[in-house]
């Protein structure tokens, strides 16, 4: 066909451009709603119970083994570190400094470090 009439093509092109623009916006909005994970996965991922349990295990360790000889204390601490690494996939490290007088009681500052690959937790607590 000679001399096809191409005058109206710009209308359809504009329509197509608008449609593409709308799809692009929809993609952005859709992705923004899914930033991160769903709430339940977020709850599952944060090791709240693990960290609380670890703190209580470390306090138990100091309660029972704080006054034993160094080798037994070291072995007990190794228990916590090794089992955390193998079964909980978490790197745990803790140690204590000399006891200080805190409002009339002798308390040791215990430093706890926990890292399970996703969450890192550091604390210094007097116990």
């Amino acid at each position: 066909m000679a001399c096809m009439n191409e005058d109206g093509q710009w209308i359809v092109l504009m329509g197509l451009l608008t449609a593409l623009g709308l799809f692009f916006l929809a993609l952005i909005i859709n992705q923004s709603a899914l930033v991160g994970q769903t709430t339940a996965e977020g709850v599952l991922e944060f090791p709240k119970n693990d960290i609380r349990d670890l703190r209580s295990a470390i306090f138990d360790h100091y309660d029972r083994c704080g006054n034993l000889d160094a080798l037994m204390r070291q072995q007990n601490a190794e228990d916590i570190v090794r089992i955390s690494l193998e079964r909980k996939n978490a790197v745990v490290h803790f140690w204590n400094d000399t006891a200080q007088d805190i409002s009339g009681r002798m308390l040791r500052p215990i430093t706890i470090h926990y890292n399970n690959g996703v969450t890192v937790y550091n604390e210094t607590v007097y116990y």
Partner: protein
Amino acid sequence: MVNDSGQLYTMEGVAAGVIMLLTAYIVISTTSIYTPGDTHIPDMQLEQLGSDVLAMMDTPDINGSDSRLNGLVRGGTGTGDTLRGEFLAGCKMRYEDPDNDLKAQVYLSYRTLSGNVSTIQLSSLDPEFTGRENTVRVTRWVQLPSGSTYDLPNLESSRPHAVLVEVLLWRA
């Protein structure tokens, strides 16, 4: 003067309009459908429940006494089924009828004489253990005093141990 050369524009315009309307409709009415399985909500509920029950079993009712969990772990494999029974009883507790579909398996991890971590099964094997739903694992640390092997193979009895109780919990 009246000819049909303008029909081209009209048709193009209509086509463009249809495209835009369809796009807008698709964009607005496409909703994401999440099934509860995708969002791991049942897993989260079960994990919180199991952690709570283990924590409450590990809380002594009277100040200074040993907790129930501590006593049951010290019984070794002999009390493993009792541990599982009490754990499940705590999980099933509800105001109305108890939540009976839950099942559990108890394991214990400890360090042996050689220093390696060993895990043994404390409760007897559940017949429905294979071919089951996804499980949730909840754990609790227990301190075992020195002086006994507590039925655990290769445990050094001369020092206190920190052991990890692991419970697999699933819905039948």
